[in-house]
């Protein structure tokens, strides 16, 4: 951190990338980056990283900025590298069902392009404007995870810019390939601590011809459990099974989406309605609107959002725990991939109370990997963002030292 911000702005390493000093809107947990750069090519990203290494500058990558709340509070940020300048669709091989995008493209942008051939990248993330690179780096996912998994499950190739200023690739352009280490999948969850993701190649899917969603309000956790067991034990193949509730305030809402060939979608939705024991079947624009609103729920919060995981059959225990969290001067909301055992909890209330809820979740046996996705800095000062990493932490740290020996990438913020 020898160079002044002015000197930084003049630096030749910016290689023509758009640069300006950090503004309020760029703050990360209240910390303003000294410089914001927006490279327009992978080569620019690489040369900026090489220079950051040379000068010992700490770096934070920003995609759509939807996940800025993730991570520990940084001590300081020299360079905020916005990846939004890299948002091109590089190739859409529709007959091969593959496509390559730059990492700064948002899921919406990508899917708008793929839609022309009635194909899609069936990923959804918490928050509109989430970029592809950001979704991989945070291992983020949404309701579509029920069928299609997390971003890594569709990822087949990756291009990275490393701290030594190189551009390297792993994987390839074909859906089946086991040559070399799958570094792309390893980047899942790396949270910008290992390298910059500059582009990614994905396996795509045909867009389903029809979609119907069953939406049911269920009065209590017993009826939720009954409905889910019935759905899971059936031969139905939903695209998404979501459970949403506000502890102590409103009944549970179960959403089951069926998207496939037209007659099968209708038949499955009707069958699901029977198994759940009620609810309405929604389709068309109304269905799209419901899902859009639903997606926004967990993302928009003044408080804390945590992500957590549980064994699917432990759901009754998780719901019991969730219900005990309700109290007068705070609110908790659950948004869950109910059949998988994964979900988000939104916690609003006093800072101390938010922190105490996180601690209660971490202490509970039924849930695991309770990670803060977004929280006011004051909450982060009380509880660690990542929680215990286990044995993987030691190995990940060794990999981190190999790829980022000076510890510049997401310094202090990331899981490693």
């Amino acid at each position, binding site marked *: 951190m020898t160079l002044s911000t002015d000197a930084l702005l003049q630096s030749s390493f910016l290689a023509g990338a758009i640069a300006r000093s950090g503004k309020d809107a760029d703050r990360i947990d209240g910390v303003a980056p000294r410089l914001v750069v927006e490279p327009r090519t992978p080569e620019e990203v690489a040369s900026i990283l090489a220079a950051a290494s040379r000068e010992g500058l700490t770096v934070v990558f920003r995609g759509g900025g939807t996940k800025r709340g993730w991570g520990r509070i940084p001590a300081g940020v020299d360079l905020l590298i916005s990846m939004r300048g890299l948002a091109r669709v590089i190739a859409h091989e529709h007959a*091969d069902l593959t496509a390559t995008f730059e990492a700064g493209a948002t899921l919406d942008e990508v899917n708008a392009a793929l839609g022309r051939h009635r194909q899609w990248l069936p990923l959804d993330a918490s928050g509109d404007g989430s970029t592809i690179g950001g979704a991989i780096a945070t291992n983020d996912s949404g309701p579509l995870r029920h069928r299609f998994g997390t971003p890594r499950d569709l990822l087949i190739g990756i291009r990275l810019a490393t701290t030594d200023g190189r551009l*390297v690739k792993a994987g390839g352009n074909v859906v089946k*390939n086991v040559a070399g280490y799958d570094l792309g999948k*390893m980047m899942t969850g790396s949270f910008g601590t290992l390298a910059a993701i500059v582009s990614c190649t994905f396996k795509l899917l045909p867009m389903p011809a029809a979609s119907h969603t069953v939406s049911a309000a269920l009065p209590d956790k017993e009826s939720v459990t009954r409905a889910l067991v019935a759905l899971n034990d059936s031969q139905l193949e939903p695209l998404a099974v979501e459970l949403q509730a506000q502890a102590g305030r409103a009944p549970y809402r179960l959403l089951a989406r069926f998207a496939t060939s037209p007659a099968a979608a209708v038949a499955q939705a009707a069958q699901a309605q029977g198994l759940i024991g009620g609810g309405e079947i929604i389709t068309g624009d109304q269905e799209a609107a419901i899902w859009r609103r639903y997606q926004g729920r967990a993302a928009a919060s003044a408080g804390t959002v945590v992500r957590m995981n549980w064994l699917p059959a432990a759901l009754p225990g998780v719901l019991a725990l969730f219900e005990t969290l309700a109290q007068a001067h705070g609110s908790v909301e659950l948004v869950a991939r109910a059949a998988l055992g994964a979900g988000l909890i939104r916690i609003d209330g006093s800072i101390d109370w938010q922190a105490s809820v996180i601690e209660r979740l971490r202490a509970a046996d039924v849930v695991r990997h309770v990670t803060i996705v977004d929280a006011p800095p004051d909450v982060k000062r009380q509880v660690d963002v990542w929680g215990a990493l286990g044995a993987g932490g030691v190995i990940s740290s060794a990999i981190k030292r190999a790829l980022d020996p000076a510890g510049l990438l997401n310094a202090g913020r990331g899981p490693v």
Partner: protein
Amino acid sequence: MAATIDARFVRELERICGSSGIVREPLELLTYECDALPHLRAVPPVVVLPDSAAQVQQVVRLCSRESVPFVARGHGTGLSGGAVPVPGGVVIGLSRLNRVIDVDIPNRRVTVEPGVTNLEITRQVAPFGFYYAPDPSSQQVCSIGGNVAENSGGAHCLKYGFTVHHVIAVDAVMPDGELVHLESALTDAPGPDLVSLLVGSEGTLAIVTKVVVRILRKPESVRTLLAAFDTIRGAASAVSEIIAAGIIPAAVEMMDALSIRAAEAAVHPGFPAAEAVLIVELDGNGAEVAELFPIVEEICRRTGATSIEIAADEQQRARIWKGRKAAFAAMGRVSPNYYVQDGVVPRTKLPEVLERIRALEARCGLRIANVFHAGDGNLHPLICYDEKVPGEADRAVEASGEILLYCLEAGGSITGEHGVGADKSEFMPKMFTDEDLDLMLRVRAAIDPGHLCNPGKVFPTPRLCGEVPGPYRQHPAEKAGLAERY
């Protein structure tokens, strides 16, 4: 650098694994000299057969302390020489770690030791209406540990993915002897997804001692058809149109005339004598399969199928699959020897690459049969030769290497499921740049700084030549960091 295996070292191994857990007899050692790729062989000085993760850990600790390289071995069905012993190294056979630890139907997962066979997992859960999806043709004999190491796939991975998509967690002994539990991104564990790094790393990063896999509900409906075509191009266009219609079959397999003939001779599946047959299978929800299957049939007719056989029952379906799955072994009926290649091209490039293979066949004077996973562009050319004819074996290896170049020129990969192993490491620099390989090697060195874990595999040897690559010598902190794990 590497210590030699002397009597004292062997006594230590024996102390860990017991006298029944160590193989020293020259004749018995021959069993371990190669995997299912017969032309790469090396007799190991010693093989250990631990029967617990703790024993594996102690063996690896010993090797690490004494700088003796080691190679994990599952059931030796690998097709890239991954389990071939390394000079002066110990082979750690995992066949005795073959316990099914937990069958958890409500949570849809099964926990097994690595020596359990792939099919055994399905056997355990079938009575409950579940199955383990990745289905390599070798599933009756290959180990789940080997599957994890190779990221094995099967005919049904077009729809259901590979091993990596089904592994929830592993226990692994790291090269320093630390026994760790790692969870994949599927569990939302924070931090880089180390499980997906280990899956497909071909035994070069760790020895897996426990695997937690997810199991799937058996599909309600399965429908299979066998369509014959006059040309490979016709069959390929059927595949393209099925995909363009928005249908992802569970499997799409293609066989050419020579492989059809071989399969007929070996297992009599009743395949028509055609230039190509296509096996298309749809599975899933009953309503969905019922709606889509007639579309597939229609497409096959429209693209020129000369005959279509629809499996009327499970027996007919099994017969069709038997013809396909026996295809490799069946080559023995039409050729004294054959070499199995494994390359991938973008699906749309299949006809073009197959034409190049035809031209190669004419040029090199060897017959080449083609059996492949057409849905995902994974080719398995079978190059026929006679080892008794001088020069033929060499020509076969050469031709098989040339096919990989066609795959790369078409934008594909040098391996779709059999791995790089010892067999194809020289092709890695043709697919990856020095910088790409260097990054992989840096990751490798971070985990295995002593370079003891299955050395000489995956990466081309000249780069490895006994030395750990560059950056690591400059960062002694690396070593210190890893040492903390003791």
